[in-house]
């Protein structure tokens, strides 16, 4: 296996407790452990993270932007799912 074959990994970092892991970029590594160590060296040199996920890129399934219109269509005409759809009299408080 040459470097050309090293798989691509996506890196996700939780910047502090209480926050979500967020995608920060990718890197190549021979296995998960090396991906983790490389991710630490590349993406957290200034304490940017308290937790790292690495996921082999081939395992990520993404929605297709070309089909976005149909794909998100079901939510488009449902304004009644938002609080601002409902009228509340001005003198009602805490709502």
């Amino acid at each position, binding site marked *: 296996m040459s470097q050309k074959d090293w798989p691509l990994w996506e890196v996700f970092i939780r910047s502090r407790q209480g926050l979500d892991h967020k995608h920060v970029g*990718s890197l190549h590594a021979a296995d998960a452990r090396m991906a983790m160590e490389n991710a630490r060296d590349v993406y957290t040199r200034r304490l940017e993270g308290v937790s790292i996920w690495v996921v082999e890129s081939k395992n990520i399934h993404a929605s297709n932007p070309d089909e976005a219109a149909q794909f998100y269509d079901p939510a488009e005409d449902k304004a009644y799912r938002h609080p601002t759809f409902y009228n509340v009299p001005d003198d009602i408080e805490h709502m």
Partner: protein
Amino acid sequence: MTNEEIFEKKIQDEVRIEPKDWMPEAYRKTLIRQISQHAHSEVVGMLPEANWITRAPTLRRKATLLAKVQDEAGHGLYLYSAMETLGMPRSQAIDDLLSGKAKYSSIFNYPTLSWADMGTIGWLVDGAAILNQVPLCRTSYGPYARAMVRVCKEESFHQRQGFEIMQSLCEGSADQKAMAQDAINRWWWPTLMMFGPRDAESGNTELSMKWRIKRFTNDELRQKFVDMMVPQAQFLGLTIPDEKLKWNADKNGYDFGDVDWDEFWKVVKGQGPCNKQRLEARNKAHDQGAWVREAAAAYAEKRAKREKIGASA
């Protein structure tokens, strides 16, 4: 709307383009060229500075320089990562760098002769890089813009540590001050060249502006840089090596002399003082690292096998 129209509208509306979105082939190609050149510049940029790690004057300077060089490696990786989202394999980009096919910033083909060059690179060269890079945080391609946000955060440390080195030298002995002046004498013009050819001669500028990959032209950035740097040089008590440098109240900026464009094109075409040396050093490092890549691969394979046996037992 056609794909082309959707794309143009996103650009107009300042909606970022993301990897899986449709984009014109020329946009993709321009980005691959620019991002890979940018990544290569970060990687080659480690060489002139690595040269001084063992000779840094104090432990503090040495730790700083090590951290800075490590940052440059990181910047290269962020950028290769952004480039790969466009379908260009990293291994191919690296092969292009090692074979001499790909370009990188001409500034790194100049030698670092004294310790003051470390200060000058941080202060001047990284200062110029920041001017180029800050607008790229809003570039139209999402992954590139996000990578640049991280790069810019870290560049600020680079510039400040460079200025601090210059300030120490300028407040030091006469010899130290002379060393600082000698460094700015050698680096000033090559730094102005970092912004690229004049607008009239920059083949890529017009399309890059239209697609909002670039936000300012080469000449606009060069002017900004001079205006920004003159007061800083004055503070340090250093003379900028340009007799034509003069405040122009009408344009509210400095007039300055013309860059030696023959020299610029020579360095771009591979005939700079260190082009050969840099590529040789890069190739040597790559070849000498082969055993590490092979060992990592062999180890990963062994572990995968062991895990398989473990799972079936």
